[in-house]
């Protein structure tokens, strides 16, 4: 099963459509951690406010994700889903993220327009699994006002408004993308394909 977590924030249709186009099998949209048991892969999409991720803690989803990723199940967070992998976001500071990566997400501080909307380029790490076959400087589609800090685990980096931030993050089986792979044309589909085809080695 490929689990797509629905936490009632925004719209899952585009992500599901992209997974379908890539031939993903046995895609299950779910909100109940009990249903997620046995999933081979997990995707957490998301657009909107960080506050919406509170429901993940309330429903026990956070604990389920923590347990399953510890066992090596590949996990991909998209947009707010990436931000949730960090400790939290100043957008809703009282809501805790998963804490798989250190640091808080913060609003862009710039005189340029916020939110950051549109196609921007990524500098990619060569040894990243998620960024396989993606050219350095490729364009992806972003729409967000909060950004995740740079870490050594950042595998795609984008610059906006004088700030360099994490476009994608990856440690073993836990991955996230701030941009929208389902809306980033051929480049985005390749990122999703990489996530779907990557198998953890023992």
């Amino acid at each position, binding site marked *: 099963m490929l689990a797509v977590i629905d936490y009632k924030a*925004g719209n899952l*249709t585009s992500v599901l*459509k992209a997974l379908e186009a890539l031939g993903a099998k046995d895609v299950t949209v779910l909100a109940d951690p009990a249903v997620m048991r046995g999933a081979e892969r997990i995707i957490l999409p998301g*657009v909107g406010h960080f506050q919406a991720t509170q429901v993940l803690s309330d429903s026990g989803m956070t604990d389920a994700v923590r347990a399953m990723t510890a066992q090596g199940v590949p996990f991909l967070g998209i947009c707010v889903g990436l931000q949730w992998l960090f400790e939290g976001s100043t957008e809703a500071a009282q809501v805790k993220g998963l804490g798989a990566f250190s640091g808080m997400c913060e609003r862009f501080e710039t005189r340029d327009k916020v939110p950051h909307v*549109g196609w921007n380029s990524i500098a990619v790490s060569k040894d990243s699994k998620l960024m396989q076959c993606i050219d350095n400087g490729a364009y992806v589609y972003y729409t967000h006002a909060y950004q995740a800090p740079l870490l050594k685990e950042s595998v795609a980096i984008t610059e906006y408004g004088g700030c360099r931030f994490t476009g994608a993050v990856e440690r073993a089986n836990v991955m996230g993308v701030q941009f929208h792979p389902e809306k980033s044309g051929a480049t985005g*589909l390749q990122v999703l394909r990489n996530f779907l085809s990557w198998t953890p080695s023992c």
Partner: protein
Amino acid sequence: MLTKRIIACLDVKGGRVVKGVQFLSLKDAGDPAELAARHAEAGADEIVLLDITATHEGRGTLIDTVQRTARQLFIPFTVGGGIRSADDAAAVFDAGADKVSINSAALADPRLIDAIGHSFGAQAVIVAIDARRAGDLIEDAEVYVNGGRKIAGRKVLDWAREAEQRGAGEILLTSMDADGTRAGFDCALTAAVSEAVQIPVIASGGAGSAVHFAEVFKLGKADAALAASIFHFSVSDARSLKEQLQQEGIPVRLPC
């Protein structure tokens, strides 16, 4: 570097793409799903589908058309026309749209902006403004509703600020004076709106050549620009347009 977006717009009437001159005399330009795919292939950064008669004739948005168009589209896809409630918006999102564009209904009840933004996020709400100059002063430019048929009684700059404050994610500004003329965008009006708000502004109306796009990005301070007729009748495609813009020093998504 963040690039300037080139957006292909499909004005749809009765399930077919049409394009008028100054909102009138419509010409048939093809099937929406086919044209959207062709534009994406030809390098458009985004697709907007506007059901131009929905409000006027009281029809709902053409969910079938949206579904068919969205199916093979993996770039941002916006749908407008006939969206009067958060439920209408939800149906369009379910059909595969990423953003909705609201116009007349937002003017009739501005709380619609808050409502859709609250449920689906600000990034999913574009407030479309049909603007017409009233004399030389930009501050006097007026907002029109119902496909440009009726004056709304709002000034363009005020309405743009209110839309942002209520949680719109982007403004789609159409100059009715320039629309369909292929004589260039209203750069002064676009710049005034772009400076009045912090959210991205999409310029629309008047595209006829690459020079016009370069002008609206440089002088008009637009974040994105939209064109329909320039692409449909193969006057130019997005890729060759972007190549020309790149030579003018405008950052664009290339290769695409």
